[in-house]
């Protein structure tokens, strides 16, 4: 009976742990991409170095901006050549087509569109560009993922709670004679409750431990293989913290589930 509860809790928490792991990975992957997003600010042809400096100061003055890098047109061309390598045939160019530019880094990816819009309004700025589509889509995906994640976690936790509550109810039922006598001779409600609460917490913690063991095996056996195949994925989840979270979740679910289960049965 107790084994069923522990097993089901373990399965639930393995699912929860996997989900949290995937969510953390995706979110750190997403954050990584978002961090790389810069605003490309192109200056008008008539802007000289002095004016460029004052525009840079103005952009840097925005609290949301973390860095401004000035890229003169010559450097811009060089960088483009390096990036595109042989695909870029410079012999076709008669003059440098690139304007002087800034690369602007923004602290919070959410602010990128607004910062870009405000930079575009500065006189002398011809264009403030960013990967608008990518940024907004990523932000939206991250938000949806977060919400779906919360919903899934709630469902999984609820499942575990119901299973523990039912197990405790069966235990209470099996010991009903003893409980009736305890109540009769004046044992306090808390005294009667405690063993069942302890059992609920134990079921939750044991389930979580089994789950953590399974996830640990996955961490050392499966993750390196995925990391080798998908090198771009940052698989740096704080495993200890995750284990702690799962253990706490197990214990909390066990506590709450058994508390309500016993309370409803005993009316104490």
């Amino acid at each position, binding site marked *: 009976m107790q084994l069923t509860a522990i097993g089901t809790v373990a399965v639930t928490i393995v699912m929860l742990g996997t989900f949290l792991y995937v969510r953390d990975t995706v979110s750190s992957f997403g954050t990584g991409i978002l961090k790389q997003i810069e605003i490309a600010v192109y200056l008008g042809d008539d802007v000289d170095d002095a004016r460029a400096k004052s525009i840079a100061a103005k952009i840097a003055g925005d609290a949301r901006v973390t860095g401004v890098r000035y890229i003169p047109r010559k450097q811009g061309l060089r960088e483009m050549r390096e990036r595109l390598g042989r695909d870029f045939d410079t012999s076709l160019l008669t003059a440098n087509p690139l304007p002087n530019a800034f690369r602007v880094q923004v602290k919070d990816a959410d602010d990128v569109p607004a910062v870009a819009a405000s930079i575009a309004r500065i006189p002398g700025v011809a264009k403030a560009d960013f990967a608008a589509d990518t940024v907004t889509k990523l932000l939206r995906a991250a938000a949806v993922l977060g919400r779906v994640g919360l919903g899934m976690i709630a469902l999984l936790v609820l499942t575990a709670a119901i299973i523990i509550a039912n197990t405790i109810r069966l235990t209470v039922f099996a010991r009903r*004679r*003893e409980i*009736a*006598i*305890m*109540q*009769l*001779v*004046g*044992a*306090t*409600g808390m*005294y*009667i409750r405690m063993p069942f609460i302890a059992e609920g917490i134990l079921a939750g913690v044991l389930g979580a431990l089994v789950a953590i063991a399974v996830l640990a095996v996955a961490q050392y056996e499966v993750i390196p293989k995925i990391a080798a195949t998908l090198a771009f994925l940052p698989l740096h989840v704080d495993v200890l913290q995750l284990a702690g979270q799962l253990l706490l979740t197990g214990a909390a679910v066990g506590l709450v589930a058994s508390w309500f289960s016993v309370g409803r049965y005993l009316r*104490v």
Partner: protein
Amino acid sequence: MIELRGVTLTYPNGTRALDDIDLSIGKADFVFLVGHSGTGKSSLLKLLYRECVPNSGEVTVDNIRVDKLRRGKVAALRRNIGVVFQDFKLLPNKTVWENVAFALQVTGARSKDVMRQVPRALDLVGLSHKSRMLPGELSGGEQQRTAIARALVNNPKILLCDEPTGNLDPSNTTEIIELLQRINLKGTTVLVATHNQAVVDRMRRRVVRLENGRILHDDERGYYFRGLGTSPILSG
């Protein structure tokens, strides 16, 4: 010690178990509560140890308004009330000693007190020599004596007995009633719900007769049936 004033109890299914009961029982009294099955004897006892709450009226036990008692205080009340049932309610997998000690252990008694009080209770009911036996190895009378020892081990002021001899043969019945009388002589208030006419008529103690949830009569030194107790057949 026990006071009921205008007590009415109706169960959720609509059955009126008790109807406007007034009853007063003094300290160290011995009272028989008699009547047919379903006349409200058990319900009246349940009110006293707060298994039930009346719909109206006042229930006072040892100066405590039981009908107004908060749930958290029920445990303390019950430590002052011993309850014995027809079916003994012993734990079959615990020995006599363990069954009696259980009542102390679950109320947080120190093991020193358990070691002192359990032998005293077992001695009182005359079961010291069978303390290591399981309930299944005892006669009905011995099982009931174990249950009485458990009810008394906390030194309660009141002992409530709900058909304590219902499952016993005449000789065991006599044994249990004599034990209850001895307990009463030590100053414990004893209230016995029974429909054992022979016992009631032989004892000649206070008899409260219930019928359809009402007190029909309440006699000092009474008989099971008022006026019939002197019949040679029944009192023999």
